[in-house]
C-alpha cells in the first residue's frame, strides 16, 4: 500500500508517493533520507498496514522517539502519532506521513538548555507583582474594606482586619474593646477625638477648679491622647514621664496670672517643700503634752502614749480613722462635772444633750441660802467661784471654760448658747498629692514626723522633703526609687470641674472645631 510523504517546510509542502517498505536513515539509498549525524545510516523501517496504520521497526540501537518516548524499537503507529528521528519530526497522518526537518543552525538538534537562572524559571516581575498585590490586599485594601462592609462571619474569620495596622499591645484597661479599632479611631485620617474617650470616661475630674487655669496653653490645646498614649503595652496609658507636667510647672513665671504656682520640675532637684493645707479641726490637742517621754497620768498611773494610741489606720490604709472619744479619750478624760455637790457625767458628742443634762441637774439642786461670807472653808470643799451661779451660767461655764473647752474650740454667737465647734477631722493635709501611709508602713512615725514638739493639732508635722529624698530620687535616678510626678500627684484632681464639661471655655483640644 502506497504512502504519501508530505515534506512540510517554510517554502511549502512537497508530496511524494512511497511504495512498499520505507527505510528511514542518513544513507543516500534510504527511502526517506534525513540529514544530520544523529540519524543512523539505516535508522528505521516503516511498513504500511491496513487502515492507515504503520508498523515501525528500529534498525539501530538508538531507536526512535515515539510520542515523546525515546528508544522505541518497534511499534504500531496510528494517525496522530509523532516520531522524532535526529531532531526531525515525522508524523503519521491519515494517508501517510508528514515530515518536518529540524531547523538549520543546530546540526545536532540538541534541545533547549538552561544556562541562566531565567532559563531555569527564575522570574523578577511575577514575584514582584504577586508580592505587591498580596501586600496591598492584606495590608490595606481588605482591612479598609472591612471597616465599611461586614461579610458573613465564616468569611470574615479568614480575612485580614485592621489589626494588621496595630502597633504595640493595647493597654489592659482597653483590652475588652481593643479589637474594635473604630471605637477610638472614629474618623479616618482624624486623630482620636476626646469625645471618643469621654464617651466612657464620663465625669473624670479636670485639672483644676479654677476655669482660668484651664485656659492656659498647656491645657486648653491638649487632647486626651496628647498625654494618654495608647498602644504602649499593658500599662502604657497612664503617662509617667515628668516632662508632661514639667512643661508648665517648671516655668511658673510664664503664668503671671497665677503668681502662687510653685516651680516643680524634678523631685530630686526641683520640687517645693511639702506645705500643708490650712487646717482648722476645732480640736485642742497638744501633741507634746500627750507624748511626754515619761508618760502621762492615767487612771492607773503613768501611761506612755504613742502615735498609734490615737491614729488608727483606716481601711484603705491610705490615711487614718478619726479619733474616737469613747475609746481613745474617755479613759482619762471622764467629763465629770460637780453640780451643786452631785457629780454629773456629761454625755459626749452632743452640745444640746450636755447642756440639757447640766440644766436639769442644776435646777434640781436645792437652792441653798447664800452662805455667810467666811474666809474659812473646810478642806475638800469647793472654793466659792463668785458671781451668779444660775443653771444657764453654770452650763455656759462648763461648756465654754471648764470642761468641754479643754479639748474643743467654742463658738460664741450673740444670742445663742455657747457650744463647741463642729470637728473637722480627716481633712487632707496635702490636697494636691496622693500620699499613702500603706506604702510606708515599715517606717516608724518619727522617721518622718516630729510630732512631740507640736503644741497643736492644727500644725501639721509634715516631713521635710529631704526626708522623702532619702529614699525617693529623680525619675532617672540610679540609687533611689525612681519617682515621677504621677507617683504622688494626679492631673485629674479638680473637685468640681470635669473634663469636657466646661464647654468652650475649657480644653477640648485641637480637634474641637
Amino acid at each position, binding site marked *: 500500500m502506497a504512502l504519501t510523504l508530505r515534506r512540510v517546510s517554510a517554502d511549502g509542502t512537497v508530496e511524494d508517493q512511497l511504495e512498499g517498505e520505507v527505510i528511514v536513515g542518513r544513507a543516500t539509498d534510504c527511502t526517506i533520507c534525513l540529514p544530520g*549525524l544523529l540519524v543512523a545510516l539505516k535508522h528505521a523501517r516503516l511498513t504500511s498496514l491496513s487502515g492507515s496504520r504503520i508498523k515501525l521497526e528500529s534498525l539501530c540501537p538508538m531507536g526512535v522517539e515515539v510520542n515523546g518516548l525515546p528508544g522505541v524499537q518497534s511499534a504500531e503507529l496510528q494517525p496522530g502519532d509523532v516520531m522524532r528521528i535526529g531532531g526531525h519530526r515525522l508524523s503519521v497522518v491519515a494517508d501517510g506521513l508528514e515530515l518536518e526537518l529540524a531547523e538549520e543552525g543546530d546540526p545536532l538538534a540538541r534541545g533547549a538548555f538552561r544556562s541562566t*537562572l531565567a532559563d531555569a524559571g527564575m522570574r523578577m516581575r511575577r514575584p514582584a507583582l504577586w508580592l505587591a498585590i498580596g501586600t496591598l490586599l492584606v495590608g490595606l485594601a481588605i482591612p479598609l474594606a472591612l471597616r465599611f462592609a461586614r461579610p458573613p462571619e465564616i468569611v470574615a474569620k479568614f480575612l485580614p482586619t485592621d489589626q494588621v495596622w496595630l502597633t504595640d499591645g493595647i493597654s489592659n484597661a482597653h483590652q475588652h474593646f481593643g479589637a474594635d479599632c473604630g471605637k477610638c479611631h472614629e474618623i479616618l485620617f482624624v486623630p482620636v477625638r476626646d469625645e471618643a474617650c469621654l464617651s466612657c470616661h464620663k465625669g473624670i475630674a479636670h485639672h483644676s477648679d479654677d476655669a482660668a487655669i484651664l485656659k492656659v496653653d498647656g491645657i486648653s490645646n491638649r487632647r486626651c491622647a496628647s498625654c494618654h498614649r495608647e498602644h504602649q503595652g499593658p500599662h502604657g496609658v497612664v503617662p509617667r514621664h515628668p516632662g508632661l507636667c514639667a512643661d508648665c510647672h517648671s516655668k511658673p513665671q510664664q503664668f503671671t496670672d497665677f503668681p502662687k504656682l510653685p516651680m516643680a520640675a524634678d523631685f530630686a532637684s526641683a520640687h517645693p517643700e511639702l506645705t500643708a493645707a490650712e487646717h482648722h479641726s476645732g480640736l485642742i490637742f497638744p501633741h507634746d503634752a500627750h507624748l511626754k517621754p515619761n508618760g502621762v497620768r492615767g487612771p492607773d498611773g503613768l501611761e506612755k502614749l504613742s502615735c498609734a494610741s490615737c491614729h488608727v489606720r483606716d481601711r484603705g490604709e491610705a490615711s487614718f480613722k478619726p479619733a474616737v472619744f469613747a475609746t481613745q479619750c474617755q479613759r482619762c478624760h471622764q467629763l465629770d462635772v460637780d453640780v451643786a455637790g452631785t457629780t454629773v457625767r456629761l454625755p459626749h458628742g452632743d452640745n444640746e444633750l450636755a447642756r440639757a443634762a447640766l440644766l436639769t441637774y442644776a435646777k434640781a439642786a436645792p437652792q441653798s441660802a447664800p452662805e455667810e461670807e467666811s474666809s474659812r472653808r473646810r478642806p475638800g470643799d469647793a472654793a466659792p467661784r463668785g458671781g451668779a451661779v444660775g443653771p444657764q451660767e453654770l452650763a455656759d461655764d462648763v461648756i465654754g471654760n471648764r470642761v468641754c473647752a479643754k479639748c474643743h474650740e467654742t463658738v460664741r454667737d450673740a444670742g445663742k448658747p455657747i457650744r463647741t465647734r463642729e470637728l473637722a477631722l480627716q481633712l487632707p493635709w496635702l490636697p494636691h498629692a496622693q500620699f499613702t501611709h500603706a506604702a510606708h508602713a515599715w517606717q516608724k512615725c518619727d522617721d518622718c514626723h516630729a510630732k512631740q514638739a507640736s503644741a497643736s493639732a492644727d500644725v501639721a508635722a509634715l516631713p521635710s522633703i529631704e526626708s522623702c529624698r532619702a529614699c525617693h530620687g529623680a525619675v532617672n535616678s540610679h540609687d533611689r526609687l525612681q519617682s515621677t510626678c504621677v507617683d504622688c500627684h494626679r492631673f485629674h484632681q479638680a473637685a468640681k470641674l470635669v473634663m469636657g464639661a466646661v464647654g468652650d471655655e475649657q480644653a477640648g483640644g485641637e480637634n474641637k472645631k
Partner: protein
Amino acid sequence: MAAASGILKRLFTLTPREGATHRSFLVYKNGLFLKIALALAILSTAFYAWHDPQHGPSGNTWLGYTLGTIGALLIFWLAWFGVRKRRYREGRGQAQLWTSAHVYLGLSLLFVATLHTGFHFGWNIHTFAYALMVLVIISGIYGVIVYATLPERITANRDQMGFDAMLAEIARLDEAALALADKVDPETHAVVAKSVGKVRIGGSTWEQLSGNYAAPDQRSDLESFFSLKKTQIAQSPQPMPMRDTPAAAPGQRRPQTIMFVAGQIFDAGRDPRGESLQKVLQTVAQRKLLVERINRDITLRARLNVWLYFHVPLTVGLLVALVIHIVSVFLYW
C-alpha cells in the same frame, strides 16, 4: 577568615592593582558616600541616644517622624537609583557614582529605619515593611560581595573563551565524535549519538546554584559499551549484535573506566577501527571537560545574579508595604 579578609581587601582596594583599570565603586571618590552614610548613621544614633520622648522612643515622636521621613525618602530614592544606575549612557563614572551611593546609603538605612522603629516590632504591616527592607539590604550585601569576587573567577574559568564559543566547541566535538564513530560501526555511532542527545548543559535553579548537575546515566552506558567494543575489535573484525551488550553496572565511575578503556584500546590500536574508537574516546573526554567548564560558568553566573531575583521583587514589595505603612499610620492617627 582568610577568605573573608581577602573579600574585604578586594572590596576596599583604594588603589587599582598594577595594570588593572578596575577600581571598586566602593571607594568611589575616596569613599565619599561611605562618609555620608557613616555621618547619617552616627547622627541618627546620637540623636536617638539623646532624645528622651515622653512616651518612650517610637516612630511617633518628632525624631521618629524625622528618621521615618529620611528613611522613606532614602528608600524611594535608592529604588530610583536601581533603575537609574542601569542606564550606562551616562558613562562609567556616573554608574560608579550611583552604585556607590546606592550601596552606602542603603546600608545606612539599617540605622535610620531601625532607630525609627524605636525597637517596637510586632506582627503588623509596619514590621513587615521593616523586614522587607532588611531582606532587601541583606540581598544587596550579598550582591556587593559577589560582584567584587565572582567576575574574576568567571574570567579565569572561561580562559579567554566566550560562552558561545564554548557552546560552539561542544557542538564541534559532538560532530567530530559522531563522524569518528560512524567510521567504527553503526552500533558505535548509535551509542555516541545517544550520548550526544543526552549531554546536559545547565539545569534547574538548584543545580545551577549548587553546581551539582544531575549527570545523565550515559556515562556508564558509554563506558561499558567502549569496553565491550574494544574486546570485539581485538578478537574479531566482525561487529557483534548490539543486543548482547551487557547492562551497565550501576555506580560505575567514569575516570577508572576511561583508563581501562584507554588501555584496552591501546591494545586494539592496530585495527583502523580501534584507532577511530580511541579518537572517539578522546573526543568524548574532551567534551566532558568542556561541559564541566561551561556548567561551572553557568554556576558562577547564577551565583552572581541570583540576589537580583530577591533584591528586585522584595524592593517592589517594600515600596508597596512602605506606602501602606505611611498611609495606615495616618488612617488611624
